[in-house]
């Protein structure tokens, strides 16, 4: 089960992931990301504080946007990941490509352009 909440805050778009991202619902995540980008977002934050699990298919979604972000100068960061999920990002090496922060305030202040 995955619930997606889109929140607009000042110059930021926050996408909150609640539940689990697996092969069956990674398409939903992709759709939401695409919608946000189409609306001309310049600063996208993923709120992963309520994300219990992410499969490789879910990671693939983030990965597929990395080139887009750098081409269009969009600031992108993930925050609030629990230990298990954070570990998944680290093992794959995505922590070197995606800015990952412990909480929202550090993410908003520290996230820089790619």
């Amino acid at each position: 089960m995955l619930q997606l909440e889109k929140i607009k805050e000042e110059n930021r778009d926050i996408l909150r992931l609640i539940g689990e991202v697996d092969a069956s619902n990674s398409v939903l995540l992709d759709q939401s990301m695409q919608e946000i980008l189409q609306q001309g977002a310049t600063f996208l934050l993923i709120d992963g504080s309520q994300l219990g699990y992410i499969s490789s298919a879910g990671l693939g979604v983030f990965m597929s946007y990395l080139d887009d972000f750098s081409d269009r100068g969009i600031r992108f960061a993930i925050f609030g990941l629990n230990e298990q999920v954070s570990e998944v990002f680290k093992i794959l090496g995505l922590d070197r490509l995606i800015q990952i922060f412990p909480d929202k305030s550090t993410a908003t202040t520290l996230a820089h352009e790619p």
Partner: protein
Amino acid sequence: MKTSTPPLGRISLLFAILVWLALLLVDLVRIFGTINNLDSGISEEVTWILEILFSIFVYLVYRHNFWKNRHSDFLTLIWRGTSTGLLAASAGLLTELIYLAFGDSKIGTDPFLKNVFYHINFAWTSAFLISTTLLWKHLILYQKNKQVVNQWQAFELSMLVALFFVFYNHNNFDYSFLFGLVILLVISILLAVNLKWIPYLNFKEKWKTLLFLFLIMLCAGVLFYRVLDSGNEGQLQINLTDNLFLIALFGFVFTYGLFSFLVTLFNLPTSSVFEQKLTEAINFQKLSQSIQPEESEEQVLDILLDSCISASFSDGAWIELNPKELFQVKNLLRFLDEPTQAMLTSLIPQEKQSWVHTSPADLPQPQTIRLSHANYKSALLVPLLINKSILARIVLIKEVKEGFNKEMISIIGTFARQACISVENHRLLNQAIENERYQEELKIAQRVQKALLPLHLDHPTSFDICAYSNTADEVGGDYYDTYQVDENHFVFIMGDVSGKGTSAAFHMAQMKGVFQSLIQLGLHPAEFMKKANSALSKCLERNHFITASIFEIDITHHTFCHARAGHIPTLWYKASEKTAEFISVEGLGLGIVRNLTYENHVQEKTFDYNSGDILVLLTDGILEGRKETGEQFGYERIKKIVEDHHKKSPVNLQQVVLDSLHQFVGGDGMIDDDYSLLVVKFK
């Protein structure tokens, strides 16, 4: 039994004729005796016995005849009765004519000749009465129940008694005769209410039946008149016809004939309703037969349209398909031309023609509409629903206002539902066939993919190796392989394509191609990963990546060189320290960064190994195997298992890991990913 049955009819006929001849002879002798005042020595009982025998044989002849033709339709049977009656009556009339012609001449008054004619007429009359009685029996016992059968048996028994009544009564017209006659007539009337065969005749058949019944009654009347007539003539000493049996048969034949005639007559106006119901039943049955695979949905709609028209007497009709339906049909328009259809369509309010309905609860119902058209005044719209969506709509048009009554709407609704069930069943069947085909394809894919994993793992005597892989779906994205570089260098790899199922399986095949080509170039682990990344970047979908772990073992120096591309860290049990740990080497998954900067993200490290050391390569499917509660199998559990069971051979160790995993997830948990395991143990 069957072979012996046909001669029975002929034998009976032969006996009937012989008995008749004997009867004639006996009677002539008796008359000769009477006329010449001689005692012929033959008592009248002989006549009676022969008469009874004759009746019985005639009965047997016709019973057999009926048995042979028992499957004929009513009309044929009634016609046979009618024809016998006509023959009997004509025989009687012919006799009458002959006597009219001869008048009072010698021949006209000859008692012997008169008796011969009398006997002929008696035979015909008996034949007619008995055959018609059997015909009535057949009609009365149509859709029989026990009560009717009992009544009929009582009647037959009474008739048998009446046959022998002559011995008691001596052919006198007295009270006992009247009493018997009344009883038999009462039974006849009771039996005559069994007329269930009449509604099954259609309009035309009813007219024919009326004619035949009229003829039968006419014949019966003529013959009865002649019987009375001849009975009144004092010239004959022999009287065959004034017995209770024959008179009662007359009564029965006439009574049932009359009842049938009247009921058929009164049934005439309503016969169209009965026919209509019968047609509806047949249509319903046609619709409910499931569509054969070679038939199309179009045929069902065709039958449906015709059924609806005949049920509602519509003056025009068509079926409109939901534009979303993939199949298109032509020619589902009846009695109207296309301009008229378009005209009428425009007269139906738009909102009633909508293909969408707001909620599953308010599914469209059949609805009647008043039309403001010169010729056509009312319409009925019946939606055809499949899976709560509208498949099509039947439009029925009538020239009269409010032309669709409740019964019509209800029966048409039933037709529509039945047709929908047929179409739905047809679709489900096709889907099932299609699915089966996909299953077959997947089985082939599964077989092909299994063949991509090595059957034999290259390894020297200095280490043991075993591997296991299972997929979440029919095919999966996990991969392992081995390669012997030279006699001292061995390589093994484990890979995991992101996602699962068919797309992962395709990428897994590419992975194998890349590994098998690059490894032959003698590349070391980090270099291998760089080249693999660059090769796979060109063929992986944008949101797919592959993680991999590669080991190059140098058995002379007891070292292994390792690089990891985003893959689950390999567990290394060190025999010297008696502990296991996950090897920490930085490295990004393949296909994530699709340019040359990837070389910044991968490194290789060389380690010394000792005898008894174990390497366990995993895919995330094992670590992420979950209990019902959501708890994952995780790193610590596998680490502990390997430490506890380090003495086991790779195959046994692998089995312990898998058993623990399956035990951990339990019946209600799940491993929703491909999972693989490769175990190496150095000697």
